[in-house]
């Protein structure tokens, strides 16, 4: 059952927003899909719609009962089923961490440290996230509020400096090559929204209206993406498709009077998004292991998961696998379908059947 720790829904909203934003900021056009530039904006619309639809099982699960998280409810159905689900969620969170680190690796080796060996910095980030996970979800969520303020300041700084450079001639006609690629791109983006699985794991620790918080989060995520893509398209136009990370190019272009090249200040806040995301995922992995193995060794699970992630991230060829992770939509689609759609549906159906049987008795 849920621990004594209680986190407010606003803080969870911020955690989820920050962790999803990193994907948006480091999206590479070939990964998103080959569309005309204006269609990227409509991709966001379809993406939000798809997330809302796929989040229906999560909404219903949260509506039923928030005193226990998804794992506890699976254990109530059957202990073995609970362990299997814990295993699936554990694998999912490990995958998310590895994918995030691979994406960060690609971002950093191209942008932050193009000429130097980046290995040490990756290890440091993983260690920092491990430390944060040990301190607990309360600390992570409180610090995420501070990080969100810092991120917002840098985001607004970019917005206010580049909005004058927006040229509406850079926008292409809507659905010039049809809507098919736009919808396909939305389907590719949707399964990377593992924050919904995180909500299912954390719901016993959240106080407040979770459904309302999730709605605000999805809408807020959409708004952020819309603003970022609008600026990217408006400022760069088709040139955006030639950039590895267009959002970074936008921050390079931003200037404030005599202060130019503030990109290091702006992009450093993106690292904080990685920090929050990986910390939360390590923490949730620990919860999965507590259900799967034993609830005695909190910190041991965190340390073990950090070591596993470090080994995979460091010793496999980062560039090859990072591109594989990023371009291959199958793995996230399977894991997303399981953790966000299938398992909550099974839990809801089982609980409903149980209720009916109890009522008949």
């Amino acid at each position, binding site marked *: 059952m849920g621990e004594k720790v*209680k*986190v*407010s829904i606003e*803080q969870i909203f911020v955690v989820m927003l920050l962790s999803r934003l990193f994907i948006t900021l480091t999206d590479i056009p070939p990964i998103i899909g080959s569309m005309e530039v204006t269609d990227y904006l409509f991709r966001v619309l379809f993406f939000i719609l798809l997330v809302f639809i796929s989040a229906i099982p999560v909404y219903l699960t949260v509506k039923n009962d928030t005193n226990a998280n998804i794992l506890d409810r699976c254990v109530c159905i059957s202990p073995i089923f609970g362990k299997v689900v814990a295993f699936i969620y554990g694998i999912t969170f490990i995958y998310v961490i590895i994918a995030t680190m691979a994406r960060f690796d690609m971002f950093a080796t191209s942008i*932050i440290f193009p000429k130097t060996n980046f290995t040490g*910095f990756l290890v*440091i*980030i993983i260690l*920092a996230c491990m*430390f*944060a996970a040990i*301190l*607990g979800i*309360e*600390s*992570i969520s*409180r*610090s995420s*509020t*501070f*990080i969100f303020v810092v991120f917002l300041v840098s985001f607004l700084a970019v917005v206010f400096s580049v909005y004058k450079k927006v040229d509406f001639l850079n926008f292409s006609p809507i659905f010039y090559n049809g809507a098919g690629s736009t919808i396909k791109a939305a389907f590719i983006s949707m399964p990377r929204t593992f924050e919904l699985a995180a909500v299912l794991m954390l719901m016993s620790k959240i*106080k407040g209206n979770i459904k309302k918080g999730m709605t605000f989060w999805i809408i807020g995520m959409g708004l952020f993406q819309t603003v970022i893509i609008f600026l990217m398209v408006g400022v760069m136009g088709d040139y955006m498709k030639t950039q590895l990370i267009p959002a970074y190019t936008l921050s390079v272009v931003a200037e404030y009077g*005599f*202060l*130019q*090249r*503030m990109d*290091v*200040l702006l992009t*450093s*806040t993106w*690292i*904080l998004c990685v*920090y929050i995301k990986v*910390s939360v995922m390590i923490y949730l992995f620990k919860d999965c292991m507590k259900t799967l193995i034993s609830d005695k060794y909190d910190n041991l699970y965190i340390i073990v998961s950090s070591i596993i992630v470090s080994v995979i991230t460091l010793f496999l060829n980062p560039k090859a696998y990072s591109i594989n992770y990023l371009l291959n939509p199958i793995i996230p689609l399977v894991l997303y379908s399981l953790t966000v759609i299938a398992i909550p549906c099974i839990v809801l159906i089982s609980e409903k059947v149980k209720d009916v049987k109890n009522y008949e008795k």
Partner: protein
Amino acid sequence: MRIKHILLGYNKNKNGGEWMFKIFKKSFEKTYAPVENPPAPSASSKISTCLSENTFYIRTRCGDCFDIVIRNVDVSGTNGFFLLCDGMCDGLKVNNNVIEPILNSKELPQEPVQKFETIRDKIVGEVDIKELINVEDALEHAMSGFLVFFLEGVEKALAFSVQGFQTRSITDPITDVQSRGSREGFVEHFKTNITLIRRRMRTTDLRIEVQDMGTTTKTKICLCYLMDRVDGEVLSNVKSRLVRSEYDIVLASGNIQPLLDTDNPAIFSAVGVTERPDVFCAKIAEGKIGILVDGTPYAIYVPHVFTEEFQSFDDYANRPYYATFVRILKWFSFIFSIFLPGFYVSFGTFHQEVFPQDMLFQILSAELQTPFPIMLEAIIIHFIFEIMREAGLRMPKTVGPAVSIVGALVIGDAAVTAGLIATPMLIVVALTAVSSFVVPSIYEPVAILRFVFIIIGGTLGFYGIIILIALIVTNMCSVNPYGVPYTAPLLPLTPAATRDIILRLGWKHLGKRRLETTKMNN
């Protein structure tokens, strides 16, 4: 010849010399040898009706202590004695209020117990009189400045409060300097400090509980709180932490601070310290628990939150707009004192594009002339500053000007002229140093973090600094010793409390709702 032979009058008769040495050795051992197996204090060391037994116990426990005085008296035909600690009592009070009235009283009953009760109730003019049944208690009271009276045939003793030891007078607080606050600061004697608090809080809700800490020192600790505002759980938490301590010696409030601080490793302390009674009373009025320690003028209070480091008593005496300005100044000073050297080192080493062009040329031309990398330069100059600061704190006042000259001329001017340190670095260090004294209460963690940021900035650049900031904030957010987050009321945000954090709103707004720290949780 050995010295002992010279001293003892050696003669060729070895036996005679050895005999004299043995006498000397015996005499030495008798006077100075440690008492083997001194009688341990026993719970059942009750006062005996036989005076000689009490006297023997006291002499055995205290040995031949110079300042433990036993004065035998005859009280209308009954033997008695006074026990006191020389130097701890007020001689006039002892003579005029206690000894003279007892010895000069003529109409005392003959029966010892009745005599004892008459002395207690009718003869002695002191207000504070305690009855003791235990010799250990009697000794403890004597060492606290009480005059203890024993009477033959009575199993009790009377302790008269006649303390008169020398204490420091009330002066300006040294560390907590305010321009419009009172000029009174706490002193070492806890009773004087209690008086300072009671004068400011004349309410029956003020509770002052005294207990002893330290098995050897038995230092008086006073818990002060307002009954109608304190959180019961916090109070019991504090009391249980103090009771659990196994300290042998408590000589300062800093000794018990770790007991009350967070159990997790934390950079900043979750216990507040103040030397001012007005600040102490203000904290108690917010529902906090204040602790006075006998022998130190620094009082502590819990729970303490980070934003309180930037509040001062003057803020509430000045106009709101000026108080707000000063608060913003303090926050900026804090940011400068921690981050400025690290930022400068990271930008200078990895991210030179951040500097505007003209500034970059100036910095570059200055740094190119120095033999050290920027990180090493920063570490060296900050280390020298810390040495000078520590020297300034400990040195005798007579050599103060000499150290100032060495610091200013030799290190500041000569080092730059010789090309060892660049001028921009010196400006950064100077600004950092001055900024760190704007909020002196958190100087210790700031000083250490500064070095850490310099090293991280010089090795990992600005991205490393950002990760470290995130780690520090997360660590601060994990501090929660009394159910009150250390980062409250900013994280988690308590909107009502933000009227007194960075802004200091006027009294119309501040007075609307009572602000209690113990209610600022998730």
